[in-house]
């Protein structure tokens, strides 16, 4: 049986009362569904009149995606001003204009909904996904967007010369494409791939729809025999470099350094990102495939202007001065919040709320695979970890470092998540030194030396070196300094080792660390990012050798995991191949139950809410957003329907 997922545009939606448009277009009545006449932005009128562009009806697909505005139908025009940090800030561009995949998430991050594809079907064992593209869909240069573009992309990613290695050509279960016709294609897998729709809907899903065959095939030697010579002439070693430079995929930086690369997104880059660019300018894509319920082609906003600044201070001042229309990245630090709050009236902006997808502000990851047998035994002892957890005075940290924002929290799904489990989130979070000592003694740490530091069985004091990158999040060091004092009270000595991020990563394969800290990814994206719930990927530093055994990426250091972790891995494998979302959720809950029993990593407090700043005349902006990477704000909240009043 095939599961048919209907797309919301199949039936024309009820059209709201519309005074302005009705006055302008008296003839336009909406009795029959296909009679919806489309409107375009005034800035395109001239180009259509001169014959430079076809009329809007011909530019839009037969069945454009109708985007429900947040508050009201908007009006055309305006420039959205924001800021990039450094010349290489592809993250901001990906978040604002880059989130455009085959499918997307709804604004609650709950359900996968159509985007470029208007519908899809999944077979029972989740090995074949059939997608239906919108008929008449076009790239920003007017060239049709067809199944061939997807097939070209997948084929290139699987070319061994081309260094992609993304989910598309994942060794464990690579993607194949079967083109049925111009608008229909199948993604086919050898093994079941139950997570595919989530993968396609998150930011990484954009990879498969960002490479136009008609433009990019000229750089591929399979299509153009001179491709390698062409690359050499341009100063590149071989075609793969030139291809990456001209046709980078997804959210790679170079994707926005080439203004000739056609796109499917709402805005086209006009002044591209480059080594010495001081701004990046974007202009509306006249072929964008979305409309509002009244048939006005989106986006409403004509242009984007991103200041390229090396300086977070400059961006902060620009925002205070009302020179930024919407921004969160780079400027929404804890330290700036009071300044921005006070400056609202003068700057003509207001603050909006952002719920962070991360769970704990800090994840204390003891190396359960330590090379030193005594340390390993100690770290693997659950009593030891519980003892440490009880010895941390979380409220003190919250009060001192986070000005009272947040609550004691382990590394667990956030309260907003369907996987929230109060016990998992709150167990062992009470500050209780006596209980801490009981557990530490149960872990065999009964003796202390003259300095009051507990001794391991072989007589060495318990001394844990904790690696941290202060440059990334200065508050980590503040927190660790408090934790250091608190743990000293129960006879555990930690040394804070502030190092550069490259060293931080370099130490992992060599297993050369006692403990590392990071923040709690996977608070809302529980299923997609389970690194702290079981040894799932390279970021599971607390069990790096176990994850190597699971992923198979680095067999030299792999080590057979404990039974409970192996059980979780088997459950996750099952989850990945399961097509039914409810069953997947059940499996994830089973994994989390095992996490709860084994308590592998220690959390501190729930990540407090962040904020964004928005000019007061910018409308249709969601008042609360989720701050995540896989579900990238503000792109996931449809900036194409934002407008200036």
């Amino acid at each position: 049986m095939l599961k048919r997922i209907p797309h919301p545009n199949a039936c024309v939606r009820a059209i709201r009362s519309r005074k302005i448009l009705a006055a302008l277009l008296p003839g336009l009545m909406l009795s029959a569904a296909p009679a919806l006449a489309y409107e375009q932005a005034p800035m395109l009128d001239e180009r259509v009149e001169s014959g430079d562009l076809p009329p809007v009806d011909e530019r839009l697909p037969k069945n454009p995606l109708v985007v429900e505005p947040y508050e009201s139908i908007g009006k055309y025009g305006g420039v959205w001003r924001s800021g990039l940090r450094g010349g290489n800030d592809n993250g901001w561009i990906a978040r604002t204009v880059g989130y455009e995949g085959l499918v997307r998430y709804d604004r609650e991050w709950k359900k996968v909904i159509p985007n470029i594809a208007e519908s899809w079907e999944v077979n029972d064992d989740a090995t074949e996904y059939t997608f239906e593209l919108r008929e008449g869909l076009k790239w920003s240069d007017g060239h049709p967007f067809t199944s061939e573009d997807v097939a070209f992309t997948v084929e290139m990613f699987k070319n061994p010369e081309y260094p992609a290695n993304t989910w598309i050509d994942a060794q464990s279960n690579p993607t194949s494409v079967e083109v049925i016709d111009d608008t229909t294609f199948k993604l086919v897998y050898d093994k079941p791939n139950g997570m595919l729709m989530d993968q396609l809907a998150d930011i990484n899903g954009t990879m498969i729809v960002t490479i136009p065959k008609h433009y990019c095939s000229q750089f591929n030697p399979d299509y153009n025999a001179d491709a390698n010579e062409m690359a050499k002439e341009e100063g590149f070693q071989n075609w793969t470099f030139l291809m990456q430079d001209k046709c980078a995929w997804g959210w790679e930086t170079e994707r926005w350094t080439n203004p000739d690369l056609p796109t499917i997104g709402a805005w086209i880059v006009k002044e591209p990102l480059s080594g010495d660019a001081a701004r990046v300018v974007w202009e509306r894509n006249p072929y964008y495939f979305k409309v509002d319920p009244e048939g006005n082609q989106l986006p409403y906003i004509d242009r984007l202007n991103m200041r390229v600044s090396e300086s977070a201070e400059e961006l902060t001042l620009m925002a205070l001065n009302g020179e930024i229309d919407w921004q969160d990245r780079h400027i929404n630090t804890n330290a700036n919040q009071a300044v921005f709050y006070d400056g609202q009236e003068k700057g003509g902006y207001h603050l909006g709320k952002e719920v962070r997808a991360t769970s704990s502000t800090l994840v204390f990851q003891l190396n359960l695979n330590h090379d030193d047998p005594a340390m390993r035994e100690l770290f693997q002892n659950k009593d030891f970890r519980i003892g440490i957890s009880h010895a941390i005075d979380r409220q003190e940290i919250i009060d001192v470092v986070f000005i009272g924002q947040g609550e004691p929290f382990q590394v667990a799904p956030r309260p907003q998540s369907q996987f929230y489990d109060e016990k998992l989130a709150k167990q062992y979070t009470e500050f209780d030194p006596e209980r801490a000592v009981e557990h530490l003694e149960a872990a065999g740490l009964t003796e202390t030396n003259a300095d009051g530091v507990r001794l391991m069985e072989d007589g060495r004091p318990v001394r844990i070196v904790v690696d941290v990158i202060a440059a990334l999040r200065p508050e980590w060091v503040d927190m660790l300094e408090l934790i250091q004092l608190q743990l000293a009270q129960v006879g555990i000595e930690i040394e804070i080792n502030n190092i550069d991020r490259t060293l931080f990563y370099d130490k992992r394969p060599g297993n050369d660390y006692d403990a590392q800290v990071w923040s709690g990814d996977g608070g809302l994206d529980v299923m997609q990012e389970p690194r702290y719930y079981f040894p799932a990927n390279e970021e599971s530093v607390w069990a790096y050798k176990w994850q190597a055994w699971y992923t198979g990426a680095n067999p030299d250091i792999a080590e057979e995991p404990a039974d409970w972790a192996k059980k979780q891995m088997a459950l996750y494998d099952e989850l990945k191949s399961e097509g039914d979302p409810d069953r997947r959720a059940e499996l994830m809950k089973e994994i989390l139950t095992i996490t709860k029993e084994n308590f592998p990593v220690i959390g501190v407090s729930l990540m407090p809410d962040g904020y964004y700043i928005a000019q007061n005349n910018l409308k249709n902006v969601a008042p609360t957003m989720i701050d995540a990477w896989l579900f990238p704000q503000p792109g996931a909240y449809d900036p194409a329907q934002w407008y200036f009043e």
Partner: protein
Amino acid sequence: MLRFLTTRLISMVLTIWAVSFVAFAIIQLPPGDYLTAYMARIAAEGERVTAAEMEAMRQQYGLGDPFLIQYWKWISGIFGSGDFGQSFEWKRPVTSLIWGRLGNSILLEGLAVLVMWLVALPIGVYAAVRKYSLGDYLATVFGFLGLAVPNFLFALVLMYLSYVWFGTTLGGLFSQEFERAHWSLPRIWDFFSHAWAPIIVLATAGTAQLIRIMRANLLDELKKPYVTTARAKGLPEWKVIVKYPVRVALNPLVSTIGWLLPTLVSSSVIVSVVMSLPTAGPLLLRSLTSQDMYLAGAIIMLLGVLTVVGTLISDLILAWIDPRIRHGGGR
């Protein structure tokens, strides 16, 4: 003179080669490579890179090669075809990235040097001639203030005051509409309306030092008999001072011209970051933190070349302004 030039040129090439080797070696010293830095950056974003992807990139970039082979590939490309290699972070040839930035650096820092000299030399002369006068003390106080206030702090204060008082944000070298335009009168005006702030910030730090050097040098010279002779012959006072002792006192300043540019580039990195100036400094800083080694190597090497060329130029100027060097040199 010809022999002098030839030997200097030969030693220049050897120095530059040595600089390139040392620069390349130092860049490789920190643990990890571009890919670990890249992985860390991506992870901070909430994303992660698979080991397979890393391995593919490592092969594509040739990062697995031993040090000497990497160095040979790099240096033979530079001397063979002017190819400075690929920037990993930008995935494009280094040469396409650095020239514009380096040009901005030379322009901006050249102007800062000019302002520094224009301000410091007259003050230095005045301070020496009117030793222990009120003006001397004032110049000393302000000079030392300029020296003592950290550049970046001064820049931040200027930016904040400009926001509070004038409601404008200082930053960059051009307004956005002039960024990509060709040079024209309005663009020059626009440039100066932006550049004054960084020029002041960069110039203040060096001014004090220059004033002190000039003052001390000149004080030594003023006591010498030839000055007394010139006065005795009835030359006007300003001519006595400007024509002879000032010229001699300039010697130590001129001989350090060669070091000015690298000093300014390295000392202006933080100011450039704070004020968002499109100069070489921030590019160098970024490439070092991300271990983008060919880009960093190219910038360091070019700074080395500039230093060496600058030293040569300063030697030539020295020979020109000081006849004792021109005629007395044993070469």
